């Protein structure tokens, strides 16, 4: 996607804290998405999260998360 680069190309998201995720585990309005490979996902993930490996985002994101307005929390292995 050769979009012309704007000043802040990647800052389309805010952050979410652990406490908020913990408090909203049962909240259906918040989709929790794990972007690690399936193996790592299997080894352990936040309960209720969806596995959407980075490699599949382009092809499967729209299918899995069809609502663009949906509140989505994204996480991977950790701050690296």
């Amino acid at each position, binding site marked *: 996607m050769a979009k012309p680069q704007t000043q802040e190309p990647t800052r*389309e*998201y*805010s*952050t*979410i*804290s*652990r406490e908020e*995720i*913990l408090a909203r585990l049962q909240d*259906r*309005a918040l*989709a929790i998405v794990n972007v*690690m*490979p*399936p*193996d*790592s*996902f*299997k*080894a*352990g*993930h*936040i*309960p*209720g*999260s*969806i*596995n*959407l*490996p*980075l*490699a*599949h*985002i382009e*092809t*499967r*994101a*729209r*299918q*899995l*998360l*069809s*609502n*663009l*307005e*949906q*509140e*989505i*929390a*994204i*996480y*991977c*292995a*950790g*701050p690296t």
Partner: protein
Amino acid sequence: MGYRNLRYYVGGMADWTESGAVIDKSDAPVAPAPVKSSAQLGTSRRLSWLELLANLSLETLVSVWLGMILVFGLIYWLAGIGMGWGLQAGNSAVKPDLDGLWTAIYFSFVTALSIGYGDVIPTGALRIFAIIEGAAGLLIFGCVISKLVSRRQEELTEEIHRTTFEDRLDRVRTNLHLVFSDLGSVQQLQAEQGVLPELVVRRLESTVRVFRGELQTVHDLLYRSQIMPDEETMHSLLANLVICLQGLVEINGALPNGRAPALDAGLRSVSSLANEICGECVPRVYAPELKESMDQIRELARKVA
């Protein structure tokens, strides 16, 4: 991607584990989409029973069809025994004996196939049953026919896919070989003359472009493809990629400063693409030697640009 409400949990799994919170270890590859708009739900529900019918296998459909005919035949027969409004053949009612059972099943077939000879006719409430059976028979029989046709079509499509796929693999192999021999001759020139003439740099540019195209193909194979070549083929492709990348790294190290910007851009693009290939990051699990090759590719990718 267009999502407007993304939030990033910076701590990730490390922070989560550290906090001692619950960790789920179930093996659910991809959970279904959690929220769907109500409009979507409506349409999918409305279609579901018909789709369910169409999704049955050919064998199941045929047995459902036969089963339905037998059940309806029994109904016609039993209606003659119990309620007195049975089938009529000619001007007399069909008797509730074994002969009558055969007649009922015969009538059931004639109705389900919508032949309707008219030698046996339903009376009373049986007419309703006969109409229901006729409609259901048409529907299921239609499904059977469409299954038969589409099965053949699927075979054909698969065949076409396979041939194009093999052609593509052949092309990748040939091109990688060409890239490899090109790189070899460039290296030789480099060894003989030290500095590469302008013309050779141009040629190198186009070689890098071809290489990038094939790298993209292999990358797509690893990430998106529905069909996969067998592991041996994949391994040879990956090994070829490794060799070509090694050649590129060597040439790149010996290039003088102030080289062509187009070559630079090509190499950067190759590097970023190759950087996405490694044993752990591809979606499928491969044999160890394939993983090793992939890791090698990633390692070389960092040296290219």
